[in-house]
């Protein structure tokens, strides 16, 4: 479980995050939603320690990540996996080598075992035959799946995904959402996804926090989002005609 307490982050005079308090629970998909520029990415980068908060605490199973020294942070990061917006695969390595990379760095397994474990993770994301290819030779959706395989190869306790569906078609987005959802349950990971894909919100949002102008505006889940009266949230989630009609239908049914 990850607890965020009174988190503030400023860049110079500009305050980007203001008094964020929330909890991300184990074995669940936790979504952070908000408009572009709302502070979602800054929140996620602060959670994983790529940015230092101006004030506040980030507790990983009651261990305060903010107060940890460099060595403890490095150790802590080995319990995390992260999927970046652009997949962030290493161009000079093959797909299999990319997935195997964390094992090469941190595990004491022999080469054959490392390769076997990496192949297992590739099989898990349905990329059994892509091991020999380079990231530049595969599609965006496949790159995201390789990033997922790389993120889970070390059996992380916490999985962070920064807009995993950006640049993907709706069908591939559903595949990625489904994969993340299954993996979260299978490995009992605390998964935090940063998104503004409303299909993800409606599909896998077991816990959702909505951020606007750096402040937490709303917290709930995919079922309560429909009945929410928060105007800013409704403006974001039901911006498209399709979702407006979904909401109207839901209200009419009730």
């Amino acid at each position, binding site marked *: 479980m990850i607890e965020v307490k009174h988190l503030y982050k400023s860049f110079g005079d500009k305050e980007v995050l203001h008094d964020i308090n929330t909890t991300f629970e184990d074995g669940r998909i936790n979504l952070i939603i908000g408009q572009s520029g709302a502070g979602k990415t800054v929140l996620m980068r602060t959670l994983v320690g*790529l940015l230092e908060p101006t004030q506040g605490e980030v507790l990983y199973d009651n261990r305060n990540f903010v107060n940890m020294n460099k060595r403890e942070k490095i150790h802590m990061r080995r319990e995390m996996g*992260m999927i970046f917006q652009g997949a962030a695969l*290493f161009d000079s390595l093959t797909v299999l080598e990319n997935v195997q990379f964390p094992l090469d760095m941190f595990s004491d397994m022999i080469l054959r075992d490392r390769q076997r474990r990496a192949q297992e993770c590739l099989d898990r994301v349905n990329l059994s035959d892509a091991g020999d290819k380079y990231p530049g030779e595969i599609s965006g959706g496949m790159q995201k799946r390789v990033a997922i395989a790389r993120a889970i190869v070390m059996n992380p306790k916490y999985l962070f995904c920064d807009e995993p569906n950006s640049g993907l078609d709706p069908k591939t987005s559903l595949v990625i959402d489904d994969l993340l959802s299954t993996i979260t349950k299978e490995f009992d990971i605390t998964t935090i996804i940063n998104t503004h894909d409303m299909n993800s919100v409606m599909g896998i949002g077991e816990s959702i926090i909505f951020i606007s102008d750096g402040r937490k505006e709303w917290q709930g889940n995919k079922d309560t989002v429909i009945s929410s009266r928060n105007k800013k949230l409704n403006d974001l989630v039901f911006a498209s005609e399709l979702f407006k009609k979904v909401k109207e239908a839901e209200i009419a049914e009730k």
Partner: protein
Amino acid sequence: MQLLKWLNTLGRYLLLMGRSFSRPERMRMFMKRYVKEMSQLGVDSIGIVLLISFFIGAVICIQIKLNVQSPWMPKWVSGYVTREIMLLEFSSSIMCLILSGKVGSNIASELGTMRVTQQIDALEIMGINSASYLILPKMLGLITIMPFLVIFSAATGILGAYSTAYFAQIITPVDLTAGIQHSFNSWFMWMSILKGLFFAFIISSVSSFFGYTVKGGSVEVGKASTDAVVCSSVLILFSDVFLTQMLS
């Protein structure tokens, strides 16, 4: 204000070097990268070093023979001057200036691209000291291979000079050999190698700094690449003055 900016950059450079010179997390991965960098930065540069050194050696010999040598000078002067120029300046300083263009832009653009595509962030998230993992093998790789490049450059320059003797018949091989062997001071070779080692450090560390600290997108990567080449070239020229005085 400009001075403060320079001091700030110097401070950030020193901090990055501090992070880079830390013990590698996995020796087997470090060795793998070290060998790869030696090949990519050093071995892949041998072609251009040999090509330029050969022609510069030939041209120096022709210029000295046709424009400097006179009946009042001994016949071995052309060979002697060619050897001294190749050893004292070309094979270390000028060759490193050329390499700062090739290797420096390569390093800065590679690291800059890794930065803007979040590959460096990905390393950090895994709990890896990205500076040490990426920069240290580059610096040690180039420093290791540099003495070989210096020696190859000097030898090829002399070969170039011989080509003018054998093919263009500008000078007789006997006179050229006499000049090349005249008053040879082996310290000059060591001096050239020492200068090369120092310049290799400048090229790799300065270019890594510009690439690693890129913020923005592809335009900034291009700018970082140019800045890396300009800055390392200026530093090479500047330090060459002091090194030459110190080592001579």
